[in-house]
């Protein structure tokens, strides 16, 4: 019988990830990125419109989300049921949200028109982008559904803990802070105040070509896609650029918020502001994350300790890089655990944060993470939806051509000193904010946090 052979695993081999793409600027001003993938069974579309929920008017949070989701419910040419009738038999869908549109269709054409499906998908997406009608009856129905769901969410600890945490870290959009911490779906009160005219206005002002990046991946001829969209989007208003992102955030210091709910477990998020994607420490941060709290598997310190050794939770993790975007993301440690284990969980988070800030990661840890990152780099990109999303996000972030190769090289160049420096800069257990939802009160949480940090050097 075979047994695992670690000596067979010492040869590093990275899977370079190639996502070919061709970018065009359409006459209307939108950017188009086509990523051809031969023999792909699915065509996937991602449309990113600059702005989104961060531009929601104060007190009208949820406007961008409602405007996006309702855009697919009727155009000047097709009612929402007609749109569905065309798309659904293709296995197709078009979904709108605060950030724009996404869609897909099976790449199954007819012998006479083998590429009919992607053309249909693009035609309908273009209609939705340019000429949605926001029928009043559709607006009323969708708003009603949104409100009912928000009412249910008001008592859901898993929803509320996230909202609390975002507010702690990013602020509320008032008092000199940006609106990024506000809930994309809004609140019951804010959505209650949104009217159809708000959505029509929102679409007219923000869904414009100059703010738009269109990514599509499938078995496609890029020029044919460009030509098709040039026609389908003809006449779309170019508009003006979105206002710059407001990145005024509250200072990084400890804040605690709790949502009382009688449940079996406590949902806990602890963290603070993190880094941007273009931060030069990003690669070191990725490596640090994998040693500290994002795996792979249960190889990271926090999973190993809090789950495997102490049995505190089924689900526990900590990450910084995953939310690094155009603005600072968050360092976020999360756990769902029984109330009597919260003290141990917080102690574990704090101690492991401090350890990685003060002691170099071991050669074995560094080796394992690099092996994992290089070997798994290309995984997950079999699907066209992932590829379309990746090319659009890279464009939004302003990542240069060849950035994936560069990232892999950067990751492989990270050493223990770089991780230590990154951890010292980026992590600060003394500034942890903590959001808790469940059967605990704020005083108890504060006491647990104070106890966890008692041993930290000044």
């Amino acid at each position, binding site marked *: *019988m*075979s047994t695992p052979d670690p000596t*067979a*695993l010492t040869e590093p*081999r990275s899977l370079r990830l190639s996502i070919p793409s061709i970018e065009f600027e359409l006459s209307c001003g939108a950017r188009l990125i086509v990523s051809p993938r031969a*023999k792909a*069974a*699915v065509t996937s579309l991602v449309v990113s419109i600059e702005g989104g*929920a961060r531009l929601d008017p104060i007190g009208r949070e949820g406007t961008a989300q409602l405007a996006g989701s309702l855009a*697919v419910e009727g155009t000047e040419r097709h009612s929402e*049921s007609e749109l569905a009738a065309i798309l*659904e*038999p293709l*296995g197709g*869908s078009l*979904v709108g949200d605060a950030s724009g549109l996404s869609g897909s269709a*099976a790449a*199954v054409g007819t012998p006479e028109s083998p590429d009919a499906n992607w053309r249909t998908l693009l035609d309908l997406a273009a209609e939705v982008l340019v000429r949605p009608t926001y029928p009043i009856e559709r607006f009323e*129905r969708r708003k009603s*559904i949104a409100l*009912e769901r928000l009412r249910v969410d008001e008592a*859901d*600890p*898993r*929803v509320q803990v*996230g909202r609390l945490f*975002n507010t702690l870290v990013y602020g509320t959009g008032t008092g000199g802070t940006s609106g*990024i911490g506000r*809930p*994309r*779906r809004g609140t019951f009160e804010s959505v209650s105040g949104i009217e159809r005219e708000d959505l029509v206005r929102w679409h007219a002002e923000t869904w414009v070509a100059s703010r738009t990046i269109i990514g599509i991946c499938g078995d496609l001829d890029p020029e044919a896609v460009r030509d098709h969209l040039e026609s389908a989007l003809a006449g779309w208003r170019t508009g003006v650029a979105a206002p710059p992102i407001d990145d005024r955030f509250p200072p990084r210091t400890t804040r605690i918020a709790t949502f009382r*709910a009688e449940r079996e*477990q406590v949902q806990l998020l602890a963290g603070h502001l993190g880094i941007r994607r273009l931060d030069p420490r990003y690669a070191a941060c990725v490596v640090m994350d994998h040693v500290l709290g994002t*795996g*792979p*598997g249960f*190889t990271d310190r926090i999973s*190993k300790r809090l789950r495997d050794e102490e*049995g*505190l939770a*089924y*689900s526990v993790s900590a*990450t910084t*890089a*995953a939310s*690094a975007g155009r603005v600072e*993301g*968050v360092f976020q440690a999360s756990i*769902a655990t*029984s109330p009597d284990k919260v003290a141990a969980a917080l102690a574990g988070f704090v101690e492991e944060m401090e350890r990685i800030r003060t002691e170099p990661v071991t050669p074995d840890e560094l080796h*394992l993470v690099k092996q*994992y990152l*290089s*070997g*798994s780099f290309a*995984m997950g990109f*079999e*699907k066209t939806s992932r590829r379309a*999303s*990746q090319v659009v996000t890279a464009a939004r972030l302003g990542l240069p051509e060849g950035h994936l190769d560069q990232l892999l090289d950067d990751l492989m160049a990270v050493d223990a000193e770089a991780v230590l420096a990154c951890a010292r800069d980026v992590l600060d257990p003394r500034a942890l904010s903590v959001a808790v939802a469940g059967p605990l009160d704020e005083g108890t949480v504060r006491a647990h946090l104070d106890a966890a940090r008692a041993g930290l050097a000044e």
Partner: protein
Amino acid sequence: MTIEPNHQSNGDGRTSPASDPSSRSRTQGDRPAAAPTSGAAESGPPETASSGSSSAGSGPRGSCATGSRTAVSDPAASDAADHASRDPDTPWSETLERGGCRVAETTLASGMRLIVGERHTDPIVAVLVFYGVGSVHEPAEIAGVSHFLEHMMFKGTKTVGKGEVDRLTALLGGQNNAFTGKDHTGYWFEFASDRWTQALAIEADRMANLALDPVEFEAEREVVLEELAMGLDDPWRAISQDVETLACGDHPYGRPIIGTKESVEAITREAMYAHYRSAYAPSNATVVVCGDVERDDVLAQVATAFADAARDVEPLPTPEPFESALVAPPDVTLAGTSPAAEPAAEPALRSGPVAHRVRRTWPDEGHRLCIVWPGARCGDVDDFALDFVQTILTTGRNATMTRALVVDGDLCTYVSTANDARAHGGLFWLFAQGSNAAGEAQLEASIEAQILRLAEDGPTAAEMERAMGILVSGDAFESEGVSDVAEQLGGFALDADWRIALDGGERHRAITADQVRDVCRRLLPFSRAAVGWSLPAEEGASASEAVDTAIGAALDAGDDAGVEAIEEGGFDDDASDDRESNDPVTS
């Protein structure tokens, strides 16, 4: 089993929940097919299986059932067909193809089944090992032992220590995961194609040498109990477990895969070891390898890796045939017969009160309805007909029930159905979140009206055509990743026949409108359903006993209403769009 493609929009375009009853690890488990989740998990696929250990990555996608399936329900008949088509000069069965993946099967001398899918699009290989053991094989007093054992399979062997599976997987740049279901348990690896064979070494080792260290055993019990507590905080899981228990009675299908607090606490190392020794042997294993491989090489590698693993084991006890506690079993559709040719006796379609009701309260404003009917065995003709029912009723915005109740109506904010076919008999699920404007009776009546329309008139040609298009195109989405294909092959292999994962379109094309009508008549009257409501605390306490009467009245009035899909998730999904990198290393 389920059919609703993962990508399909339900109502407002939100991804429909997949509905595989045996799903991957690392996500909370034990939720029935297609159940929405609350809160943070609300945008994700529901997971029925629970699991624990895992390694890098997200694991194979949950649905092993979205593909097509066939009417192969008689194992003897299936074997005969297999042997008849097999070339005597090759160990392989006939080759079938799906999504560019060429698949064939063979059986090793040890009894281990091997299914290989060759697809060279990407330099990636998925390796799954399935064991024919799940919660259905467990004694009630140690319910959850299969799932707990699955956790322990990552806790060390006599050869390698605790955590080594994850460490080796990471060093190889791979990903792993595991899942436990009602009928089977699966272990998954995904590796680059130059190193995939190490997965076999890991599996062969832990198939024979599991350590079950006492300290690790107790530590992991705590993890399982936390996982169980997590499930107890999920209102959908709670109500769906209620109705599943009602529907299944004493049959082990009615027990949660994860077990109960009492049963998990009662599991001893000795009991787990006995369970392991009886189930984890080549003769009870199916290995599936899909991706950038050559099948003869795979056969040689598997034969070598598991060369010393063969041993005699007492076969697992065959589970009792599933006979729902709700009603006598319906007329069973036998393999090779057609219910259209031999119509069953006319059941009463609206036959008074439902078989069983259950109510619970939950401390929020949600009006959650869960209905379950005894359904079809995986691979039976009824299984495929119920796929059509599910698609016609709730897949996509133009699905009839979704359209009537959600998109155009005002009775609920979400509705889904799931054909949860299992190896020994299945369930058909319906989940709806009622709106505040709708009474319970009104919503139930509207749901029944939709089903009655199919049972009385049958689906229209347009409805059949639409459903067929969705089912066929769903194959494209379900075959994008080699892990998806491998999981479907293994799941169907254990529950019915692996070929079901490959010739989907043909299997579904054989279903007629009359068969859909017939299956609704026989299987989906409310009189053979269990109905559960989870209500806000103050309403649940005073819930009316007169619901059935009111339903009848509403039906008479031709009431019709609707439901719409859930659209957002929990805390991870509610932040600014400006915080995402979508890099390979973080997504």
